[in-house]
């Protein structure tokens, strides 16, 4: 076990995957000599060479589109998109191309690519640098979307994503990159199912469901609730497409009250799907409506007011109070 930041854990996971399989490549803007703007690929070009760690031209569609082609040639490209807000030029290559190849060709052609996408707010930056664009991608059949909440998870998920035969977006919570440290077992096996949620705190009265950067907020809320004599369970989805419904439903049935949290806007967000599914499947077990704590239905605001936009512990507790009052 070593103590790593989330950033270093992803670096370690990438290095391990590249070390084990020389078909694994990395491509993206400034990922080589600079080591990426977040330094996630720091040192990888020196170690694996410029042919496997490629500084790409400044073109997101180019990065993802060529990755699909390299994958068809037998390589396993890991794309880095520099910031959440810059992913959209690659939208067609992700949605119409990578995600449907397997379906279109009845499994003959696949696109086992990974797209690493730093996301999330409360980082004090300028426009297009604090977005949570997951809901543009989650309805896309054929696409997997995972997001870690701890360094250990990040280390595991990046390797599983690379090993997956499907196209995978790894949403990396950028505000945790350098601020969150945790234990990582560098020898842990990196196989197994990609879409497994994790109950990260056991509780009985209310279930708090989140992913990525929200998980620590939910855990903090659960601690406050515990001090007040209430027992909250916290579920880290880890995979937001597909969702591990068995884990979600089991927790919902157990507590009867569910709060879903994410930074992306509320309307048609991941929370909407969770709320719909939970009431469809767990109706008679519910004591209160499933409530959402989310970003607001406006473009991501200037950073001086972003803390009023991103869900806080208090906003989670407000929803819990409402749910418990039913």
């Amino acid at each position, binding site marked *: 076990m070593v103590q*790593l*930041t989330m*950033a*270093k854990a992803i*670096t370690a996971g990438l*290095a391990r995957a590249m070390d084990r399989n020389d078909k694994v490549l990395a491509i993206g*803007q*400034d990922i080589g*000599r*600079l080591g990426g*703007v977040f*330094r996630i690929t*720091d*040192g990888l*070009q*020196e*170690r694996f060479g410029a042919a496997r760690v490629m*500084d790409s*031209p*400044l*073109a997101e*569609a180019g990065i993802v589109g060529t990755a699909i082609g390299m994958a068809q040639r037998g390589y396993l490209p890991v794309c880095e998109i520099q910031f959440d*807000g810059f992913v959209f*030029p690659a939208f067609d290559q992700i949605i119409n191309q990578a995600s449907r190849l397997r379906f279109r060709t009845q499994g003959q052609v696949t696109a086992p690519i990974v797209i690493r996408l730093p996301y999330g707010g*409360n980082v*004090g*930056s*300028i*426009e*297009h640098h*604090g977005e949570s664009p997951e809901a543009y991608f989650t309805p896309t059949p054929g696409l997997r979307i995972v997001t870690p909440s701890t360094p250990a998870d990040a280390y595991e998920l990046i390797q599983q994503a690379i090993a997956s035969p499907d196209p995978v977006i790894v949403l990396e919570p950028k*505000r945790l990159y*350098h*601020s969150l440290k945790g234990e990582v077992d560098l020898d842990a096996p990196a196989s197994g199912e990609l879409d497994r949620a994790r109950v990260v705190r056991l509780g009985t009265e209310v279930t708090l469901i989140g992913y990525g950067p*929200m998980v*620590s*907020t939910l855990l*903090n809320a659960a601690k*406050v609730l515990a001090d007040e004599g209430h027992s909250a369970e916290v579920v880290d989805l880890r995979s937001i497409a597909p969702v591990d419904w068995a884990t979600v439903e089991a927790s919902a049935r157990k507590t009867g009250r569910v709060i879903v949290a994410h930074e992306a806007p509320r309307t048609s967000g991941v929370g909407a799907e969770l709320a719909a599914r939970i009431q469809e499947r767990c109706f008679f077990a519910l004591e*209160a409506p499933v409530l959402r704590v989310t970003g*607001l*239905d*406006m*473009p991501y*605001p*200037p*950073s*001086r007011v*972003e*803390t*009023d936009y991103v869900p*806080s*512990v*208090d906003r989670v*507790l*407000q929803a819990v*109070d*409402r749910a418990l*009052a*039913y």
Partner: protein
Amino acid sequence: MTAPNAWTPRIVGPDNQGPDVPTADVPTADGPTLDVLTPDVATSEVPTPDEQADGIETVQLLDAEAHPQRHATYSPQLSVDEVRHAYATMFLARRLDTEGTNLQRQGQLALWAPAKGQEAAQIGAIAALRPTDMVYPSYRELAMVMHRGLDPLAVFQIMRGITHATWDVEAHRFGVFAFVVGAQTLQAVGYGMGITLDGADEVVLVCLGDGATSEGHVSEALNFAAVYKAPVIFLVQNNQYAISVPTAQQFRGAPAARAGGFGMPGVRVDGNDLFAVHAVVAEAVSRARAGEGPTLVEAMTYRIGAHTTADDPTRYRSREEEDVWGARDPLVRTERWLREHGTEDGFFADLAAEGDALATDLRARVLALEPQGITDLYEYVLAEPSAALAEEREQVTAYLAGLEGR
């Protein structure tokens, strides 16, 4: 049945950030861990305009030592007074650019994207326009902002995280900054198509960088502009780097060379030569006004500073390279020309004092900036009222009111 709304805030504030909130793209200063290696110091790769090996001529009217150069097609178009005025804007922009970096280092700005070194490219180009001509900037055009008479505070507001983009685009004929690289080029072409439809006597100048030319939408913009003969000047400020990636790794065909393939003239110019940039852009503007369509101008310059304050150029370029290009500083060159043409010390001393005063005033105003409350921002989401948005706004207002005094 409705749930009661009674609740008590317990932890007021942004409690979900962890102990240390990193700025968006500021990496930690930690060295690499595990078994990855530390990169060697970057070596020089970027040739100066005199050393370009691709056979494309670089138009120059004033060389790096401020000696006039004759050119078959282009000649200086600026009077001494006009050069003084241009130099003053370049100088004051440089002064505020330095203030921007300082303010960021002092924690007062989220980010700063230095324009240092690109002042001649920006001012030479915009000085060739009429005030009625439209400009679509990228995000590094502080000198152009000042040339158009915008309060530079607007740029500092963006970088302080106060607003996204707030200036009167129509009044100043100056578009909003484009942080999504290259996206503005298509919009500029569309604006130019509108000018053509109107039969108006206007042109559009759109700014982009060397890196942006790799984006698909920039190729689309060049094609649309050529097809519709849009009155657009594409000003590519080739500052040699897209963050860390030098142009040698960005493209094999230079922007000036590519223009011909799209069906428009492409001209490369020494971007640190105020006279040459102005003359080349003026010629392109004349063509556009005459209905002869777009031109691409590749201004060869150098980003003397970092990409942004979050960047560390020592990772990808050498001090020697910076020194070579630093010696081509457009301010130094223009100042030399002015001195050789009768401009006295007093002019420069007055300008320095004006710059200091401007910076002092700006700093005070930056520190006093307060953001609008988040609930006010609902005003700008949709033009027509929306019941759904109004309801959310009420909820957020009530929530924030519940936090007050705690």
